[in-house]
């Protein structure tokens, strides 16, 4: 029986590491062009995207301190020459403890509220976006491109300024209230700004192109013969829509919904400018934990939890996408 030996293990690790580096070196030597094409973006993203996430994970296990930078070191040499590794779970404990008491919870409330806000906004975006996409897909080829461009054009202007525009429209003596009162439809101004409704409007407005584009891409492929067949068989247009068009466009609906839902969960500017004090979303909580309370470790822990919140729906999305799109042949 072979006994376990640390020396053997280290030897093995180093041998494998050098073998791997050696094969890299050979690859670089043989195909320098290939190595540059792959290596430059790979190294850049590893250093400036992947490494930051690992540091984020590391600092979520640190303690807040008043030093500069304001967090404790995870690994440190003590004065007694002891290398100490300190995992501080207090940040996650704070988040979990906060969730066990729903009445006074801040973080849990923000998480649930983010999901709720994103879900409602996504449904609203679908209701507004579907007719636009359907109309574009059914339009003659001369009209299709201009109509599509008109949907995309607002996306190219500043999202901050587009959110700002809604303040002027929705506020107490804003454009909307003034118009409605002048028409005599309402007697008193509606209170929309600084409520959740304003946040929904802002999110739908900001992300509508992301809903419309995948829907158009899907609906264009719909064969009009199917609808004619349905009509010939005595199906009314409305019923044909719900029984033929809508089920066939589900991949587009799902793609568009995910493209709205995922960024909406982490949204900061829209709830901050249009929402009220209780339209808390996780992006806002993270922001204030970082900038107002300067608790970097807790902000990092919130970010890690947010990542979990985003990763799960994204994986489902990827799975559905992969199932629906046939493997590209090469």
């Amino acid at each position, binding site marked *: 029986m072979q006994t376990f030996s640390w020396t053997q293990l280290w030897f093995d690790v180093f041998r494998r590491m050098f073998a791997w580096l050696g094969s890299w070196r050979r690859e670089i030597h043989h195909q320098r062009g290939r190595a540059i094409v792959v290596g430059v*973006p790979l190294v850049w993203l590893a250093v400036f995207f992947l490494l*930051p996430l690992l540091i984020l994970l590391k600092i979520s296990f640190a303690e807040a301190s008043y030093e500069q930078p304001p967090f404790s070191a995870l690994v440190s040499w003590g004065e007694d020459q002891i290398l100490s590794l300190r995992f501080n779970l207090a940040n996650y404990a704070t988040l979990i403890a906060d969730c066990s008491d729903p009445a006074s919870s801040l973080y849990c409330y923000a998480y649930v509220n983010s999901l709720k806000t994103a879900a409602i906004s996504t449904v609203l975006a679908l209701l507004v976006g579907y007719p*636009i996409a359907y109309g574009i897909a059914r339009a003659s080829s001369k009209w299709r491109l201009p109509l599509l461009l008109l949907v995309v054009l607002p996306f*190219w202007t500043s999202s*901050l300024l587009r959110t700002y525009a809604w303040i002027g429209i929705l506020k107490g*003596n804003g454009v909307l209230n003034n118009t409605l009162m002048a028409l005599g439809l309402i007697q008193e101004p509606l209170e929309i700004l600084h409520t959740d409704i304003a946040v929904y409007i802002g999110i739908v407005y900001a992300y509508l192109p992301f809903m419309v584009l995948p829907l158009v891409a899907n609906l264009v492929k719909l064969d009009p013969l199917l609808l004619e067949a349905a009509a010939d068989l005595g199906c009314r247009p409305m019923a044909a829509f719900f029984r033929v068009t809508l089920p066939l466009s589900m991949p587009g609906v799902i793609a568009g919904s995910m493209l709205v839902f995922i960024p909406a969960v982490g949204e900061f500017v829209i709830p901050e400018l249009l929402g009220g004090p209780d339209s808390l979303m996780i992006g806002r909580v993270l922001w204030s934990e970082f900038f107002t309370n300067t608790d970097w470790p807790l902000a990092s822990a919130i970010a890690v939890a947010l990542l979990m919140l985003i990763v799960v729906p994204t994986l489902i999305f990827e799975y559905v996408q992969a199932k629906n799109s046939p493997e590209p042949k090469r």
Partner: protein
Amino acid sequence: MRNRPYALYTAMAFGYAFLYFPILSLIVYSFNESRLVTVWAGFSTKWYGELFQNEALLDAAQKSFMVATVAATFAVTLGTLAGLALSRLGRFRGRTLLSIMTSAPLVMPEVMLGLSSLLLFVSMQQLIGWPDGRGMTTITIAHITLCTSYVTIIVQSRLAQLDDSLEEAAMDLGARPWKVFFLVTLPIIAPALIAGWLLAFTLSLDDLIIASFVSGPDSTTLPIEVYSKVRLGLTPEVNALATLIIVFVAVVITVVGWMLHRSRASAAS
């Protein structure tokens, strides 16, 4: 069609009105005489005059343009390499990693990208003394990372549409790979690169959140400056600025669209 779908037309009209009403109201009230943004008090262009005397805003705009230009250029370079690697090189070591790292920033909330980038810069400064504090350099680096993903997606989808027979023909005729890239591939994907550059430029110019995390005391970009004004309430100067940006974007999109359309038409004939 037997009967025109009036319900559809109504819903579409509502959708487009929803998209353009806020933009229209921004533009209209930028010409308002009164400081109260939502009360009409007569036509005036005075807020444009005030805008061009606002040193802080002009300075921030200049910084934003510099950051956006540099970031977009780097992002197009990196994104083209990544797109090329993912769609033309077949299997290679680190392919999965590269593909995950180019698509992940697209779905990651900006607060996370901003916070993690800041933590990286702070840690790097502690370890190797670079970057020295935070400012334009750190904003530019963070923006390059974000924009590279978008450019990669654009380049990759363009290359996926093209079949590689032209490139293979050039190689069969003895052209070396880099020559094939510059003489064959690059001219074909040039429209995608222009679109990618413009998108990267816009994203960088528009970004408030990442820039807020990684900016320093003397690197206030345009969105940060605008945000600090907007938080205090409505200001007609911001309306004027928005109008200028909208006009600028509309002109650029139209010109680029027309140029691409013309080059495609001349290629077809």
